[in-house]
């Protein structure tokens, strides 16, 4: 086991590699929790339900490449896209998450004293498939 630095993270959206424009990204998996407590119990009992998830990413805006965030993401707002995520970077045996998600938000922020930044939020649809890279 070893610590893993975030700089090697790879993210593609609709086959476009947006990694060079990303400063941060976050995957959040969740599950519904159902109450199954019956009479006579002294504590709640629960059972897991449907899985759900969100994914967000953001970074430095770039206007030159076709894979820049505006060109790659803005036209996809409201559509379902395939997202891949390599949280430990590219390499044999390292994890690869693949999922479909609706691009639910795309934000551009223009501070007067710094670079333009962007961020995007995805609502994951269906399961996240985790494999190891060949």
């Amino acid at each position, binding site marked *: 086991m070893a610590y893993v630095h975030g700089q*090697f993270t790879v993210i593609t959206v609709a086959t476009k*590699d947006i990694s060079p424009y990303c400063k941060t*990204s976050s995957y959040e998996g969740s599950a519904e929790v159902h109450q199954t407590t019956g009479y006579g119990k002294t504590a709640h009992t629960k059972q897991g339900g449907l899985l759900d998830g969100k994914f967000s990413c953001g970074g*430095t805006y770039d206007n030159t490449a076709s894979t820049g965030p505006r060109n790659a993401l803005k036209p996809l707002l409201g559509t379902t896209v395939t997202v891949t995520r390599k949280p430990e*970077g590219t390499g044999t045996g390292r994890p690869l998450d693949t999922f479909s998600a609706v691009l639910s938000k795309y934000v551009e922020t223009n501070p007067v004293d710094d670079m333009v930044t962007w961020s995007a939020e995805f609502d994951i649809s269906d399961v996240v498939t985790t494999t190891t890279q060949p």
Partner: protein
Amino acid sequence: MNLEAVAGEVSTALAAISGLRRPPWGVERITAPAAIIALPERIDYDGTYRRGSDHYPDLPVIVLVGKPNERTARKAVAAYADGSGAKSVKAAIEAHTYISCDSVRVAWAEFDTAKYAGTDYLAAIFHLDITGKGA
């Protein structure tokens, strides 16, 4: 982003200011007014994933104008520090189209007395914020 290439382009940008000399690094004597592109305070690597971007938060450009107590030196340094105009360092540097980096901004300037080759000069030190590709 290659430091030498960026410094070369900043020097090229300063050529737009008539009369401002741009002596090469390390010369023993200069004739004022002259602009010297120093080394960055530091280089911030890995601003984005996969060597996407690097950042020079402070690349100093030192403009030496004349004897510190001369009225003409004060007048000259004011023109170089102006935010716009024919002598404006900020305007000249930011008007250039760069290929060695993505963004060059003259963030701030300060004034000091600088010694070069044993001579004191009134100086304006411009601090450049530069962002470019990491690989």
